[in-house]
């Protein structure tokens, strides 16, 4: 059972540290780490709650995980919770990006550094794919969910349709289907 269902409110420092970890480890984007820390490690939200929150974050403008940080922080600790979650998420990446930016011109010429960065990028892609599959497996999706999830994956991932267009069209269709389905 997750903290939300138990009615527990993680303290602000825990929110800060959780999102600090997500930001620090989030190579290639933070989506996979957000799921791991929020659902698997800290058990703040259930799979279903997290997936719904992520879906909402994705149809809103802005970075998904930032949106999720704001909503989770506010839900547990109000506006100040939202602020500490966002600060936690941004602190390490900003510090690291400044550090890398300072030495980038010197290190980008070193072939081993390039190779290591490329290696991490390849694995980070796999981690994101793995987390998405894991989430899908745990949620026991019905046929309509598989259909819409598969469709938006193919549209954006394979045919590289504009994300805004894909979300508008398939998101509305998915909502319409959920609306007309009995007892969803």
């Amino acid at each position, binding site marked *: 059972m997750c903290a939300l269902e138990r009615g527990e409110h993680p303290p602000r420092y825990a929110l800060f540290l959780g999102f600090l970890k997500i930001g620090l480890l989030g190579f290639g984007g933070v989506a996979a780490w957000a799921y791991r820390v929020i659902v698997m490690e800290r058990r703040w939200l259930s799979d279903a709650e997290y997936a719904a929150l992520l879906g909402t974050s994705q149809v809103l403008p802005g*970075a998904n995980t930032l949106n999720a940080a*704001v909503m989770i922080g506010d839900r547990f600790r109000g506006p100040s919770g939202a602020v500490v979650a966002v600060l936690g998420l941004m602190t390490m990446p900003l510090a690291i990006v400044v550090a890398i930016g300072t030495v980038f011109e010197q290190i980008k010429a070193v072939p081993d550094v390039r190779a290591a960065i490329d290696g991490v990028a390849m694995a980070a892609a796999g981690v994101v794919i793995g987390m998405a599959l894991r989430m899908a497996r745990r949620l026991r999706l019905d046929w309509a969910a*598989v259909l819409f999830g598969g469709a938006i994956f193919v549209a954006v991932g394979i045919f590289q349709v504009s994300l805004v267009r894909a979300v508008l069209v398939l998101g509305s269709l998915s909502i319409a289907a959920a609306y007309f389905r009995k007892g969803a």
Partner: protein
Amino acid sequence: MSPLWNLVRTFVFISLVAIGGANAVLPEIHRQVVDIQSWMNDETFASLFSIAQAAPGPNVLIVSLIGWYVAGLPGLAIATASVIFPSCFLAFFAGRFLTRHAEKEWLRRIKVALVPIAIGLMLAGGVVMARAADRAALPVTITAAAAAVVVFSNRNPIWVLAAAAAIAVIARHSGVSA
């Protein structure tokens, strides 16, 4: 007009149209920064993009770097705040709305309907990232192996990333194209 104010105007706008995050509006950021504002050339933009990719964290970091390049540390702070605040405000009120109306059946259905969209997009994001690396045998194998480890074990993925970095370096030295 001062460069800081221009950073604010540019990135507040970007923040409000960035459905799907920074990578979805990357072409628009490029248009604003290189074509309209002429803050930098293509090469510098590409360079900042690779730094943002190499660092951990949300992809909006590209905007922080642009601010830094344009106006130093104040520019970094201003650009980051401009791109974060507007969308975070929206998310804040959207989150409250969702919580307040959590019992409403229609809202529950919308949330359920967005679940597959979230998963499909996450999967697509992984595939797009994988495609950005090239399609040689080694990258595909590393990506597939990393996905498999995450699906079938609870091990912390940081080990997967570390192993991949080591494998890529070893492969380079043994002449395998990475």
